[in-house]
Each structure stands twice: as C-alpha cells, then as structure tokens.
C-alpha cells in the first residue's frame, strides 16, 4: 500500500467490481440459469410493451358476446377468446404486469422489513433477538396461505392489498434468513475491531455486516419473487386478489374454471403463464446461489 495513488476507496471499488463480475462469470456458465434470465427479460418486456400496445378500456374490459368461446388458432385470436369474447392472448400478455408487480413489490416489502428485523436480531442478540424470533414464530406458525386469506378478507381486494398481504406473509422468512446470515459474521474480528474503534452500530451493520451476509439474502429474494407470484395467484384464484376484469392470471383461472369441460384452453394458458414465470425465477435463483457460492455447486 505504499503507492499513494492507490487509495482504499479505489480498492473497495475494485473489489466490488471484481466480485460482481466473478458472480456473473459463474452465472453465465449455467445454461438453465441463463434460460431463466432470458425468459424473465422477455416477460418484463412483454409486460411493459403490452401496456402501450393495448388499451385497457377497449381491449381488456370491452366484451364481444357474439364471439365468445372461439377456439385457439381462430383467425385474429391465436389463443382463442374467453367466455365474454375477449382475446385470450391479449389478456395473458397484459396480465404479466400484475404477477410481476405483486412478485417484486411483495418481496421488496418482506425483504425490507424482514432483513431489518433479522439484521437487528442477529447483530444485537439478547432480548431483542428473542422478541423478534418469537414474533417470527407466531407468524410462521400460521400457514401462509391462511394468513394471506385472512389479510385479504380484512382489508378488501385490490392490487395494493395483495402486495402487502403476500409481502407480510414472508417477512419472518426473510428475518430468519438475514439473522442466520449475520450470526457467523457477528463474531468476525473485523466487526470487533470496528466496535472497539468506536464506529456506530448503524454504520457497522450497513458497511460491514450487510455486505458480508448478502448472498443468502439475494438468493432468498429471487426465490421469494417466485413464491410471491404463486401465493398471489392462489389468492386471486380464491377470488380474493385483484378483482375482475383485470386479467390477473389466477383470477382468469378462477373464472375459466366452470368452463373446464368444454373450453379447457381457458384453464390452460394462464396456468402456463404462471408456471413459466415462476420457473424462470426459480432457475435464476438456483443460478445465483451457485454463482454466489461456488463451493455449493457440484
């Protein structure tokens, strides 16, 4: 470190860059992870583009009763039309935004609250840790689906409540992951050193503890999006999620259900959409985990 031009800030920047590059190099090696990433990008593009190409009032709400139940591959309707004569493909594409939004925002909510709680619990330990763990226990004891149902029922059905409900349900999971990630770091010498030299707790948490326990949290976030989309689609299927006529995939399945014997295609496409989206996030999660921790990859 005798070179005066080479400051510690440069070193940090270099280390950071090299770390993310390293992860990306590892990530690229897995074909399945790359497939997941490509599909996710495609879905995101579809979700954004469909907002501009389609008009909600005329393409989503407007019915065409005389043209109901047109089978797939009918001219002008690649995936056919639904029970109100609306184009199924348009609805499936337009619906991508709901699942993505719920998945991402709900994870953001649970990550924010969960990680804060987990970091605090892990870093301070003692009574605080105990209280937070007990709190998590209460919420993890209730099956997440039922807790979601109760929250949706209490606060009414809308996209915002759905995000909140799904997000809250997964808070304890994040808290536990974050705490578990912090525990080994807590005992490290550099943390001790920082404490002794009088650095504030917040600063220690954000500049030392968090970066060093980030990997499991990142993986949990990716998987969390997948889980969030699954939970949200089930709540919508129960009629508790985004209200009709919004083409949320779970809600589409719910209303297509009574036509299952004669018009099974209506029950097929939204389900495929959910599965492919969830699958891609899972693939990406797997890839990230392997890339972040090469030792696990075998």
């Amino acid at each position, binding site marked *: 470190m005798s070179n005066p031009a080479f400051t510690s800030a440069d070193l940090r920047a270099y280390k950071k860059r090299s770390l993310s590059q390293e992860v990306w190099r590892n990530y690229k090696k897995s074909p399945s992870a790359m497939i997941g990433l490509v599909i996710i990008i495609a879905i995101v593009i579809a979700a954004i583009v469909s907002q501009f190409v389609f008009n909600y*009032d*005329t393409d989503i*709400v*407007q*019915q065409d*009763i005389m043209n*109901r139940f047109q089978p797939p591959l009918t001219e002008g309707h690649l995936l056919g039309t639904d*029970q*109100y004569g609306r184009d199924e493909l348009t609805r499936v594409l337009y619906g991508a935004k709901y699942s993505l939004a719920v998945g991402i925002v709900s994870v953001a909510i649970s990550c924010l609250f969960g990680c804060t709680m987990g970091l605090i619990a892990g870093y301070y330990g003692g009574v605080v840790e105990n209280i937070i763990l007990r709190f998590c226990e209460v919420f993890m004891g209730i099956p997440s689906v039922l807790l979601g149902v109760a929250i949706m029922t209490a606060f*009414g*059905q809308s996209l915002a409540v759905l995000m909140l409900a799904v997000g809250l349900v997964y808070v304890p999971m994040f808290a536990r992951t974050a705490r578990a990630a912090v525990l080994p770091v807590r005992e490290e010498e550099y943390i001790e050193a920082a404490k002794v030299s009088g650095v504030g707790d917040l600063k220690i948490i954000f500049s030392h503890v968090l970066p060093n326990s980030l990997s499991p949290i990142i993986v949990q976030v990716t998987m969390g999006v997948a889980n969030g989309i699954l939970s949200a689609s089930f709540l919508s299927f129960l*009629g508790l999620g985004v*209200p*009709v*006529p919004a083409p949320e995939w779970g809600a589409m399945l719910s*209303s297509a259900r*009574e*036509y*299952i*014997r*004669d018009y099974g295609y209506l029950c097929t496409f939204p389900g495929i959409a959910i599965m492919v989206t969830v699958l891609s996030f899972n693939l990406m999660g797997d890839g990230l985990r392997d890339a972040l921790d090469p030792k696990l990859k075998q």
Partner: protein
Amino acid sequence: MKSKKFVALLMAASVLATTAVGCGNGSQSSQSSPGGSGATGTQYKEEIIIAMADEFTTIDPMETTAETNQIVQDCTHDLLTDTNLTTMQNEGELLESWEMVTPDHWTFKLKENVTFHDGTILNTDDVEFTLQRAAEKPTAANYVADIKEFNKIDDLNFEIYLTKGNVDFNYTLAANSLAILSKEAFETMEESEAVKIGTGPWVFDEFVSGDHVTLTRFEEGTLYPIPNTKKLTFRMIPEASARMIALENGEVDVIMSPSATDYSRLTESDGLQLITETGRTQHFVGFNLQNEGFIGTNPEFRLAVSKAINKEEMIIAAWDGYAQVSTSMMCRDMEYYADIEGVPYDPEGAQEIFDRLGCNGMTIDLVTSDASHRVKMAENLQSQLQKYGITLNVEYMQQAALTELCTGDGTTSGVEMYILSWTPGKNADYMFRNPIHSSGGRNYSHLEDPDIDALIDAAAAEVDTEKRAEMYLELQERLTCEIIPWIPIAQNTLTIGAAEGVTGVLIHPGLVHQFKFCERLI
C-alpha cells in the same frame, strides 16, 4: 433387495391411505335392488341421492332461513298453509280450511287425524306451542309479531286475532320457519331430538356434517301416501362440475343447480334430464337516490342507463342465456303482474341523454357481491357502459357487507350504483313493501316518495281485486319507466338435473325445491 422392499412398503402405505377414505363414508351400493310398494309390478329405486351445493346445518325450522336446510325440512315438516308448486296457489297443508272474519280476525280448522313421527296426533295445542316458540326465535319472530291473541276452540279449531289487519295472513303462515312441531315431543324429549319430529312423509334419520343427511320414509304416516322410495339422501357436493360428473357416473340421482355449461349435456344425453322453471328472483341494477354528489339522483340519467343496457347480452354473459328479460319491476309469476313494455333497449336514445348530461369520460362507482352471476353482470355492465364513454368502477364484497352498506344511511354511505336482487313471496305486496316503501328494510335506493308509499299501503289494504290490479299496474309503470329506483334486468331460470325416470321433483321459485314426492322408476 432393500430398495424393492422400500417401494413395496410405500405401495402398501398408499393402499392403506386410500382404503381408509373408503371406510369413513356410507357406500353407495343398493343401486338396482328391487323395492318399493308399486302395485302393478312397477319397481322403484330404493334410495334416491340428491347432490346439494350448500351445506345442510340444522333440522330446526326456526333456526334457519337457508334454502338448503328448508329443502330438507320441507320433507320432514309441514306448514299450516303452503304454496302448491303445480298450481302456484296458496293451499292448506295441515289446515282443512280457514276464514278471514275481518282482516284482523281469522278462524282455522286443522285436518283430522294427522300423525307426527312420534305417533301423537296433531291438535290445536301443537299449533299454539309452535307459534309461541317462534316468538322467541330471532329468525322466526317477525312472522308471528302481529299475533295479538291465539284462542283454542277445540282440538281442531282455533282463531287468531292480529294487532293490525292483514288480508294475506294465510301467506304469512306459509313461512318455512312456522313448520308445526309436536308439543308432546318437546315435553318428553331433548330439544335437539324433539325438533326432528314433524308430520312430513320423511323421518330424519342420519346427519354427517359436511357430507350427507339421510331421511327414511314415514311408514305410519296418515297425511300423505307412503312414498315408493325408501330412503332419501342429500349429499353435499359444492362444485357444480363435480355434481354433474357424479350424476353421469350414476353416483347420484338428482343434482341441484347444475352449471349452465352443462344444460345441453343434460338435455341431450341419454338417461339424463333437465328440469327448469323461471325463478322469482328479480336481478337489478340500482341507484342510490340520496347520494347528493351522484348524477344518478337525476331521473334523466337513470332513464338513460335504463335505455343503455342491452339486457339480452347481459343474460348471455351472466346466465349463458338461461334467464328471462324483465320489463317490469315485478316478478313474472306474481299476482297482479302486468306485462308492461317498460323501457326498451335504445342505445341512440341513451347516448343522446348521456351527451346532454355531459357524461362522457365520467367514472361511476358500483358495488355488488362476489356471487358468480353478480360478478358476471357487473363485468358485462362495465363493458356496455364503456361504449357510452362511462367508466364503471366496481367493488366486490361479501353479501352481508353489501346489504349492510346499501341499506345504511344513503347520504353518507357513498354508494352510487349497485347490483342486487330481491326474491319476494308470491303475494304482490312483498314486491314493494320491503325494497321500495320508505319504511322498508331493504330500501336500497333510499326512495322516499309519499305518493308511492301511499299507493303501496292502499293496494295492500284494498279488498276489491280489480281496483287492486289497477293500483299495482300504476306502481309498476311509474317505478319502471319514470322513477326508476332500480332497473330490472332479468329473472334467471332455476334448474335441477336428474337421471332418467326420476319424477316428483318440483322447482320452487324461491329456491326451496320440493323433493318429498321424489321417486325413480327402474
């Protein structure tokens, strides 16, 4: 060879798991065993299984207004008067005859020698006991609230004095909650047992919660001929498609409310039949007339919406076409129903008024319940009004919450439009008293029109049928075409699916279908 053993163990476990399910429930054998008391060699199926959509919860007639419970109670218990579902007339069931001396004084005579399931004979004391018990039960009390005095004349004759005149008191007695119970049974048995005792042709036998109720025929019954069927089982299958498949597979004989998508399958398949009848439920799109900021307080706007709605299209969307367009407020099979023209579909006329009122680009709130047909109606209405440039913002809520909101204070509830329905009794007064009269408990539109109130009251008290008809015609015309507190849309078709050979199933317009004479030839 450890892994093979392991797999074998798993297989054994799976067999165990599946057979365990089989044990818990009654088997459905006895499919073709001969039985019945058919005189001329005709044979009847011994057990008829009816698949219900909702859960049966109680046999006590005074504890419930749920149709599923009342359907079962209709088989086991009888009323003083009841609607004959073939002629749709109010007739005596346990009553031989009755007479209105004055509108507040009625005399009655019971049928002779009617036996209860416990062997006792029906007499005036049982009626008095029943009416007294009803007064203490929240779900039944309002039917007997007007009774001032009950006088026993002898074992079969009694008279009732009312606090206020009611020319239709015989209809009140047809309320399912007033099924006659045995006084002696209540004196000798536990209450939970005594409520099972009725005079109907079926005896309550077994009840497994969430699964089925079984009735056996009343062998010593005197009021009805002994049924040809030995056992009547009501099985709960909530999903419509599952009920349909059970019918096709021969697991059940009758299914309640099949899905509209299965109607063609029921009418066209061999060995199946579809029983249909127009229901007496008026489905409507309504307005809150007390919400000051709402454009719907302007009768012109209400007329425009009335013209704007293509009811036929909505019927296809909501009931796959199985409903009748309503042109009048009143339900079709009611007394004094007049076949008025109403407000016909007129998109140009509607657009003209909307333009004049400057409705283009307007957003209106609508509330309705999460019941499937209401959701479909709302979705379709959204689509229809969109064509006129009006955006409908729909909120779905649970039925009870919706009722509470729409009957609450109209000035503060914030409700603008709503989709609801009303199922009146057969008597014309039921159509207007509750949902239209300013004192009515279900006055969702918060209409407060002294003229209309006076007309409803006058019509109810009028003894001359011709004058009464005129009054009800005026009510229908004014409400449907001029005041429009709500827009009548349709009366949906009620359906029951059955296997071939099933007879004696009667559809009740108020959903309490009749199964007590149900039998199946084999």
